[in-house]
């Protein structure tokens, strides 16, 4: 069971109050009509899905209902940080950094 710190509520709450929404920081192409099929398909469907550190989008569905980000290890399940939408992660998923 995760205990997740919501950066808006500024409290730890139980996993069941939250929903995971997949990979974070996926920018919508500014001009969808100009995208190739490949670019649009990559945006819609293709994901990093790493075994290890992952920046992901969550929503505090049964709480403040705000979206925020988590950096989490998908193998150990350790939550390294949570941060607000629009902020950048402090923990890098790139092991070289």
């Amino acid at each position, binding site marked *: 069971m995760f205990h997740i710190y919501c950066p808006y509520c500024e409290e730890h709450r139980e996993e069941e109050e939250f929903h995971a929404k*997949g990979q974070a920081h996926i920018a919508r192409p500014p001009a969808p009509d100009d995208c190739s099929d490949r670019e*649009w398909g990559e945006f*819609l469907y293709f*994901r990093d899905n790493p*075994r290890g550190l992952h920046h*992901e989008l969550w929503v505090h569905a049964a709480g403040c209902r705000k979206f925020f980000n988590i950096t989490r290890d998908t*193998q150990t*399940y350790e939550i390294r940080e949570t941060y607000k939408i629009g902020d950048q992660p402090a923990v890098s998923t790139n092991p070289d950094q």
Partner: protein
Amino acid sequence: MQKYSGFGLLKHALSHHENWQRVWRNPTPRTHYDVIIIGGGGHGLATAYYLAKEHGITNVAVIEKGYLGGGNTARNTTIVRSNYLWDEAAHLYEHALKLWEGLSQDLNYNVMFSQRGVLNLGHTLQDMRDIQRRVNANRLNGIDGEVLDAKQVQEIVPIMDCSANRRYPVMGASWQPRGGVARHDAVAWGFARAADRLGVDLIQQCEVVDIQVEDGAATAVVTKQHGTIKAGRIGCVVAGNSSVLAQMAGFRLPLESHPLQALVSEPIKPVLDTVVMSNHVHGYISQADKGDLVIGAGIDGYNGYGQRGSYPTIEHTVQAIVELFPIFSRVRMNRQWGGIVDTCPDACPIISDTPVENLFFNCGWGTGGFKATPGSGHVFAATLAKGEAHELAKPFSMYRFYDGALIDEHGAAGVAH
């Protein structure tokens, strides 16, 4: 290889069963294979078997990081059926079901395939309309199916609470009599033994850590335990780890890996002789020959490679089961575990060439690939042998996520199974 038979059993009894042959060899890998299959689950082993049997390609290795069948193959709830909505998926799963029907004979190994029928329950008017549509589509595709009302369902499963005043009343079901269950690890062992007999090397405890790509073509796998092994073609069949392997070769897949869990009860006397699944309240249950109730849960919403499931998910599932079967409220659960399933956006698999030449992927089966094991191996073997997709596999190219030709099976695959 020793052929298994009733007579053989008798003969071995005379020597106190001490002279049985090893079921497969434990070879040291060669330096080069025509085809390397990464992943020794049911799908990988079936692929190797059909490569040897149907295409005469026997210089083949299956490379498995753990033990054969130790992935999702031996972690699943073993439901087999083919009542999918769309033609492409229906044909693929029905191809598999036909192979299941002769599999024990073909492999000379009892996979305990038991066609005890599968019920998919409907609890709302919309459920029933969807069921009607799906059963009609199935019948047009030559797949057996019937729409049952609540009374008929009650006759098949007397212990289920089908009363009209439940929170989610059972209004009816689809019924596929040819569906059922099979013994999962026997499927892995049966394919392994039959592939080994045809000359396939099964290399266990050997983890692929890199895929070598030269001029856009895959040439070898790098393993932790046995160094570099060259290959003419590589077939990657690693379920929840597919994205990890794709990353080694330098591309991404439209997949997310999620934990999916199951649990079994203590053994009890026979009470349930069919398979019951419900999309709406989300649960599925059958009873193993040993007597355990086999119950499957949903996936955890987050990505995970932890091979364990979350507590709220299992609680939700058990609630649904007890609502349907109040008689099970006092049954004690014995074991619980998780597998990592590779979910695809349209709930259909990927059987495909990739941006890297000579490298093929068979993945994305997500929560429901056990039922496809023989069919998946059969079409993937043809794909690897010829270097181009088998007719039934063509619609399942990874490039459908670029051109938009998705095969949306979220209805037929709505419950994780």
